[in-house]
């Protein structure tokens, strides 16, 4: 089945866990938990605002993980942390800091995956070892410009899925799915058996469906965070995510052979 990974900026509102649960209720296959960073280099205006709003509320990695731990009994959906290198490596010069500790803390809070867009595969060695040791899947990203040899290495070393960055741009809503999305997904699928999830700029259920026809699912971020920033309730977001879910399920109907991939998607529902 086509995977749906909605993204949520952790701590964006005091009741942010309710959005997570709404995503879960709407049929997310996993939820990406954005750990807000002061300098989100790969994020466009919407997710920058979401991060800023969370940081201004005073949230920290610790407070976010505490929130998740507290909500543990309600969370069944897999959680994947998404953040930037500085938070991951923070304190690596001191005992008790650095990526080992970071990954262990994620795992302790029930997080099973990690995406760090500014740690490309060349810089990923140490982190990968730390993640593996903590039982965390380090998901690597591939971009339209990634050359074949790198793509092969990314395919080899990524865990759980490969994140296909659909467009040469930052995160953010767009009028149409980038034309670079499908060829990239195809190139990745040619070098790995891992599922390929397409992210960046998936703004509508229609675009999600289009993307899902080339890949194995989508990551949806800015389109959801814009609504949260605009004041939409968890229930509103449940409806929103459900629409993406329905669009993907529709694609599944068209392509019954896609079911093969559901095996690796973990304990969805």
């Amino acid at each position, binding site marked *: 089945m086509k995977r749906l990974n909605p993204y949520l900026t952790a701590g964006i509102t005091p009741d942010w866990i309710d959005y997570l649960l709404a995503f879960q209720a709407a049929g997310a296959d996993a939820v990406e938990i954005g750990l807000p960073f002061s300098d989100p280099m790969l994020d466009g205006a919407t997710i920058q605002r979401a991060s800023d709003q969370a940081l201004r509320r005073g949230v920290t990695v610790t407070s976010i993980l505490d929130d998740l731990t507290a909500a543990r009994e309600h969370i069944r959906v897999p959680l994947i942390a998404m953040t930037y290198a500085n938070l991951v490596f*923070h304190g690596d*010069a001191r005992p008790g800091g650095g990526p080992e500790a970071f990954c262990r803390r994620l795992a302790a809070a029930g997080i099973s995956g990690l995406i760090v867009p500014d740690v*490309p595969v060349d810089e990923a060695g140490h982190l990968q070892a730390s993640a593996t040791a903590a039982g965390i899947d380090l998901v690597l990203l591939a971009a339209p410009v990634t050359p074949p040899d790198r793509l092969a290495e990314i395919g080899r070393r990524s865990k759980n899925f490969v994140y296909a960055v659909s467009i040469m741009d930052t995160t953010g809503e767009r009028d149409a799915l980038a034309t670079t999305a499908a060829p990239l997904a195809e190139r990745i699928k040619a070098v790995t058996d891992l599922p390929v999830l397409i992210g960046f700029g998936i703004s509508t259920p229609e675009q999600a469906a289009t993307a899902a026809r080339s890949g194995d699912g989508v990551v949806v971020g800015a389109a959801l965070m814009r609504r949260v920033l605009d004041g939409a309730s968890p229930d509103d977001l449940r409806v929103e995510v459900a629409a993406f879910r329905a669009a993907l399920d529709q694609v599944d109907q068209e392509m019954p052979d896609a079911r093969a991939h559901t095996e690796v998607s973990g304990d969805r529902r």
Partner: protein
Amino acid sequence: MTGAAMTGAAMTEAAMTTMSAPAPTGRFGEFGGRYVPESLIPACAALETAFREAWADPAFHEQLSRLRSQYAGRPTALTPAHNLSAQLGVTLLLKREDLAHTGSHKINNVLGQALLARRMGKSRLIAETGAGQHGVATATAAALFGLRATVYMGERDIARQRHNVFRMELLGAEVIPVTSGSRTLKDATNEAMRAWVAAVDEAHFCLGSVGGPHPYPWLVRELQRVIGEEARAQAPAVPDVVVACVGGGSNAAGTFAGFVDTPARLIGVEAAGGAAMTDGMPGVVHGYRSMVLQDAHGQVLEAESIAAGLDYPGVGPEHAHLGATGRAEYRTVTDDEVLDAVRRLARAEGIICALESAHAVAWVLRAAGTPDLPTGSAVLLTLSGRGDKDMATLAGEVR
């Protein structure tokens, strides 16, 4: 560790490895690297290749040296500061990057990068700027080479360096105000990198200092090396102390590169409110690992300096390495000391330097006659730029 302590075999060995090419991963010791989104990896790699090839190509060096001498006003003078020397009891020589075309050392870097951009077939330059000097230099090179230029600049810096904003626009560059975060250089850099992602095919990211992903810290240091090499050739003898201000650290790196193989002490002077070397911890921002001002949770802090060019929470990774190995030392001075230094230099020597450059002067003023800079020391100080851009700030109109 002081320079005096670093002598003999230890120094010779360090000198042989220090400030040469970084490790293949772009590392200077534990610092550096290439922490950028996958979308930028091929561009960084292509730049590295282009730079390696160009740097090995005598024709490239010839082009660059022709631009430097015929266009940019190099070599810049080495001025004995007779009056200040007499007042302070040290022998102070000023390396006059304020005399370079566009008014600072930034032109050294930009001319080289523009040549590389042309070699790579790019039609556009994207740049971040703090004080606007790098933006002006970029706009200048873009005009000269017939490239488009887009310069990202924090709103706060736009207000205090309006002079340079107008210069960039007159040169035909587009200046884009950045309203996120501290609205200074840090955020302008984020925004420039985002813009680069979206235009990586046609645009070269013309980074202004020795930060950023590999190969920038190396490339920019090599392009700024001309400061140190000229100064070394111009100075009557190897000085006891070599001092320069440190924002990202490019003028200091270029200066230090000329003296790293000598017994000279190397001193970088940071803004007290933006002292990554002094107050930072290792971290990753803007594509490189170095010392970074950050809070206990890893959020990058906003720097706070009267000098827009030093108002930055990071520092080039090679400085982190030079600091870690003890080869260079870092000091801080306050905004008030800096304002005083601008005035004292102006009145003593008839030179109005940039607020950034005045950090180095301020340290000399404070340290001269103390154990940190004993009476009789020979000091070579890089004056990274001229103060024209700072008149509004100095007149108390903006801050």
